[in-house]
């Protein structure tokens, strides 16, 4: 037996704890075990009911320092859970097994409470995870419902909602309608893929040109819209349109579909509340201005000039004379 004291080690255990030799005779016990009626020198079975299953586990306790559990009952009928293992380290040569005896009622109720807690926790975690997935799905659907699939710009519905919000906030803005010129011709002569490229280049030119507080949308087909925030000066709006035109020029130059391909757009501008206080009238004004711009091959037309039959500035960008469609 090594110098370190078995009784001292046992005194550190709160639960009734005993030490057994190879014949399962008690060689040492602590005070809590004494209180339960255990006494050293007697076989364990004097104090506990050891069924065949428990006996087999007790044998295994001698084989390693792993803790093993089994249920048993004391001589007075109290059910206990035993935890046993071989004493290692300085005691390894003595072949001793230490056995702790736990009150099974409190151990079981703790287990049940903990198991319920774990189930509840896992259920909550699953619900939180489902919630996160649902929130992500809602966000994705919301994005799909408000965005144009090809360009990523807002769609018409979302754009009108943004415009209504600005009007409700009494925040001045300029509504710019843009029409990509000759989209049908591009589709017919170069194919729909080329047409899609033209649409995405237009969208990119708009995104590269607008400010952070502005909003852009593809209304459908070759029609785009910008909601330019704040009361913009005529020069400011002209600069915006010019930037879009410059970027369209660069896009066409980089395109390899047709070296003679040039992109261009017509623009109509109506300002709220200067040009009209009604949203429906505003759209109509911007539309008419855009068509005037298209008809006269002008860079842009302001709605306020419609009745004056005047236009602003020289054409900033243009489209070459169309070729006759080749016979197939």
């Amino acid at each position, binding site marked *: 037996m090594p110098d370190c004291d078995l009784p001292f080690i046992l005194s550190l255990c709160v639960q009734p704890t005993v030490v057994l030799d190879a014949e399962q005779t008690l060689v040492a016990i602590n005070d809590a075990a004494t209180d339960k009626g255990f006494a050293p020198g007697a076989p364990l079975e004097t104090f506990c009911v050891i069924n065949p299953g428990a006996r087999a586990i007790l044998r295994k306790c001698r084989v390693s320092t792993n803790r*093993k*559990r089994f249920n048993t009952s004391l001589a007075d009928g109290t059910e206990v859970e035993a935890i046993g293992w071989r004493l290692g*380290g300085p005691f*390894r040569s003595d072949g001793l097994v230490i056995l702790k005896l736990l009150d099974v009622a409190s151990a079981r109720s703790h287990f049940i409470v*903990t198991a319920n807690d774990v189930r509840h926790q896992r259920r909550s975690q699953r619900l939180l995870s489902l919630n996160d997935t649902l929130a992500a799905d809602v966000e994705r659907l919301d994005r799909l419902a408000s965005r144009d699939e090809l360009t990523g710009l807002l769609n018409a519905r979302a754009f009108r909602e943004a415009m209504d919000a600005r009007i409700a906030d009494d925040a001045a803005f300029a509504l710019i309608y843009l029409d990509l010129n000759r989209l049908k011709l591009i589709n017919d002569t170069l194919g729909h893929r080329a047409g899609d490229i033209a649409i995405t280049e237009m969208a990119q030119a708009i995104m590269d040109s607008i400010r952070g507080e502005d909003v852009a949308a593809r209304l459908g087909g070759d029609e785009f819209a910008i909601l330019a925030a704040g009361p913009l000066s005529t020069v400011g709006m002209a600069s915006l349109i010019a930037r879009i035109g410059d970027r369209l020029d660069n896009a066409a130059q980089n395109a390899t579909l047709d070296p003679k391909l040039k992109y261009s757009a017509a623009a109509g501008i109506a300002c709220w509340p200067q040009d009209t206080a009604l949203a429906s009238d505003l759209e109509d004004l911007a539309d008419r201005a855009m068509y005037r711009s298209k008809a006269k091959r002008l860079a842009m037309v302001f709605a306020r000039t419609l009745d004056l039959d005047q236009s602003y500035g020289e054409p900033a960008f243009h489209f070459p004379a169309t070729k006759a469609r080749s016979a197939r």
Partner: protein
Amino acid sequence: MTISPTTLLIDEDRATRLNDTDFFGDVVAELAQTLEETVGLSDAEGFIATVGENIGERISDIYDTGHAVTKSYIAQILVDLKDRIGGDFRVVEITGDKIILTNSRCPFGDRVIGKTSLCMMTTNVFGHVVADRNGYAHVRVAESIAENGNHCSVTVTLDANSADTSQGTEFFSG
């Protein structure tokens, strides 16, 4: 009424894990996690260790005990048994009375990550196999994939006098 499997709507990507090996592996991993969450890591290790001891006994019986017990032979057994169950252990070194092994894959696969109680399977299988032939074994898992490492490192000590018993588990021949 016969239902042909081809008529079932199934996510084929997820269905690759619906086979007997993965199913039972998943069940074991879930049991280990439930144990750890319910009774705590220490007690969960105890339950897994009990299972590991029984498995270790069975595996130990598979290998011949009549062969001369040498460190290299013992190491061969440990590598072989792991190889047969999907782990890829190899010997790093055999020095003095220690055998140091390492691997890059656990037989439980990635499902072992976060479930350190499952390391008691290796501890107990190794411990029993070695103790049955050597009379004694001390097994320590120094690093593990379960603890988010990229490999496991297991040291088996054959001499009780040089074992650091402050960590790991000791095994004795039954």
